[in-house]
């Protein structure tokens, strides 16, 4: 056990190497910024252009992902560079705006978009490290696109159990319980946010309710409820996968379009700076 804790994996080595490079670059930038400031240069111009360059490099990763058939390096290497350049850009951004809220509508909007992109990137990084492990720990692996089909299959199987009770026992106990408590559960995905915080409270509540209801059932109906309980667990696992995979798929719909907006807004900002703030003089 101790060995596994102290093992340094190739990923650790890579992370440390990139962190060291990031630290060196950051120190160099801070030193250059300081030197420029004591020699009365406009540090905002240097930090601004540096930041724009970093944003362009960051956005280029999305283009790399589209051009898959050229030997442009591994996507994983690009992602590592993307992460560390992203972290560097946050520091450069802070220095560029002087660690205060900018004034002016465009500047506030630009800062807001930058921070949203940065934040969504950090969140994306976090979930892409945590969620895959969660998905492989619980339930069966299922394609996101096939989830509706699997859901339909589970619901059909449950309805077969319910109809069998109606047919064979001439009793409405299970069908009544199904329409009141189970049908909404099996019809669509539930407890999205609960699943994201790994809470099983709702599932357990439903299972307890089913247990409590068995006192009103005959032996065949009890068997049917037990079978349905298994389906509840399977459906709950499916909801878990749905919630996690949905987040994994949709966070990029925030991050990527806003990144392109950021580039456009940054270009507009540069034009304005050169046109009206005397940057060119």
């Amino acid at each position: 056990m101790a060995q596994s804790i102290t093992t340094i994996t190739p990923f650790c080595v890579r992370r440390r190497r990139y962190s060291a490079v990031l630290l060196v670059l950051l120190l160099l930038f801070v030193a250059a910024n300081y030197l420029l400031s004591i020699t009365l240069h406009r540090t905002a111009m240097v930090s601004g252009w540096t930041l724009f360059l970093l944003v362009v490099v960051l956005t280029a990763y999305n283009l790399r992902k589209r051009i898959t058939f050229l030997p442009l390096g591994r996507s994983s290497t690009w992602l590592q560079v993307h992460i560390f350049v992203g972290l560097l850009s946050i520091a450069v951004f802070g220095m560029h705006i002087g660690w205060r809220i900018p004034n002016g509508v465009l500047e506030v909007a630009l800062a807001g978009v930058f921070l949203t992109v940065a934040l969504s990137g950090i969140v994306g990084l976090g979930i892409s490290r945590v969620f895959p492990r969660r998905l492989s720990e619980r339930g069966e692996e299922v394609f996101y696109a096939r989830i509706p089909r699997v859901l339909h299959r589970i619901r059909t199987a449950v309805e077969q159990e319910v109809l069998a009770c109606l047919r064979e026992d001439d009793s409405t106990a299970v069908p009544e319980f199904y329409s009141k408590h189970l049908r909404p559960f099996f019809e669509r995905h539930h407890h999205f946010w609960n699943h994201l915080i790994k809470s099983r409270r709702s599932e357990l509540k439903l299972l307890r309710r089913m247990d409590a209801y068995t006192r009103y059932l005959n032996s065949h109906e009890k068997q049917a409820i037990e079978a349905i309980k298994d389906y509840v667990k399977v459906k709950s696992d499916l909801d878990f996968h749905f919630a996690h995979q949905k987040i994994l798929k949709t966070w990029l719909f925030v991050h990527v379009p806003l990144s392109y907006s950021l580039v456009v807004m940054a270009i507009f900002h540069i034009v304005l700076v050169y046109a009206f703030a005397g940057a060119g003089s």
Partner: protein
Amino acid sequence: MTTESDVRRKTQSDIAFDEGLDEAAIDELVAASAFETLDPEYRQSDRFRATLKAHARIVDVQPADIVVREGDWGNSAFFILSGRIAVEIEPPESGMPQEMLGRRRDRPKSLLQALTQLFTNHRFPEFRGRFSFAGSKSAVQRRGAGNATRIYLQDLDGVLKKYAHAFLEPGQFFGEIAALGRTRRTATLFAVEHGRLIEIRWQGLRDIMRRDEGIQALIDKRFRERSLRAFLEASPMFSHLREGHDDALSELANGVELKVFGEYGRAQSFRKMADEAMAGDFSGEHLIASQGDYPNGIVMIRCGLARVSHKFHHGERTASYLGPGQDFGFNEIMAGHGSNKPVSLQHSLRALGYLMAVVVPTALVEKYILNHPDSPWHHKVQETEATGRSNAVQRVDQDLVEFLVGNRFVNGTATMLIDMDRCTRCDDCVRACAASHDNNPRFLRNGPINNGVMVANACMHCRDPICMIECPTGAISRKLDDGEVAINDESCIGCGTCSNNCPYDAIRMVEIRDSGGLFLRDRSVASRAPITKATKCDLCVEQKGGPACQRACPHDAMIRLDMSDVEQLVQWHNQ
């Protein structure tokens, strides 16, 4: 009492090589000069006729027909009844171009061609151009139908003038070494005139050899001379005998035992055995050597895969796996060498399906390895490759080892493994694959999972590719340097043999379309069924930079792994 559910169990004759082989044709086969040396009683027996009916067929060839192609996996041998067959003897570098033999041209696209894919990939899936159907202009010419389809050389006279060749005359055998060893054909043979051949599957050849010492001796002699010597020479164990030790190599080639285990292997038996093995039942795997026995010699694997295991409580625990070129039993012989107390085998060895092994007797091991002055093992005790391999495998989770070996995923030279603890299910790999193949993904991000590792349904480019056996046109082939197994779309007739034979579901039959998205239909059949083609991963041979899937994974979750490289597996698994 017979009821409607009573059926007849299939026998050998129900699964005939050529279903159209009638009694008259069998009479012709029985009378063939190929079998003149057979025991007359056996030659006239029903048993012999049944063997021929099940495993032989008559092949009529026309001038320029390619009979066997260098590099293809063979499962049958040929006997020439009439007509001459040419063997290309040109060195590989100046030999016939691969396109001429119906193989795919694997030239990487230029930068411009690669870039234009961004705009030229087709909107509809599985679009095919003018080379995909009969009558279309194609670099590959073929004739016949179904399993009798043959590809032929377009300019026979030119080929005979340009490429060095020798002739085989009626009465001669060829192809038996590749058939019995389940190895690749070593030369290309083509007909130069109208002729007739007997083609015998390896099972039939084996049955005949068992009953005829003459044929057995002849094939055994040719095998030892041509194939076994080269195999021993190539082995690192005998590398010190390569220069100037011809006599030693000859003695070795004549002194070793050749052993075949397991069935030749079809997908069905393969899957059944894999299921049993996963349940801890190794009874379907032939026991080659048992733990605790004293070693009679080194088992060197020539083709196939083997499991190395040892007793663990009431079961067997897999310690390692072996493939072609690897050996078993050397450590024990080395440990016991020079002492009065022999060392028993520390592990058992089992064949995972079909396996051909060469057993080098202990006396020859001692003479040419342990006591030979040029040998690296002379008077030394050092870790052998087998020990190092076994130690390396132990660094992978035991469950995963059992899973990979039990399901024979260790057969792959480019097995697609996905670490599900890192995979974000983004499908960048699938998109990259599709973008590199005219918008058609050539694998499914789906497959069995064990310990968070998925073995995806992607062609593993097996070391022992049973998909290539029985392809009637040789459309599926492997690069001569043991590279990718690829399908030539032009010569694929869509018979589905490769797809059915692949035990890993890695080959998919697809219905092809024209540029308007309409299915191309076969007008030669009444149903006008859509034309199908076999498709699979080709490791992006036409793309710069290799497999796009692996390069596209942002999270280092995917790898294409040569499973014989245990160190790489361990490194990836423990990263």
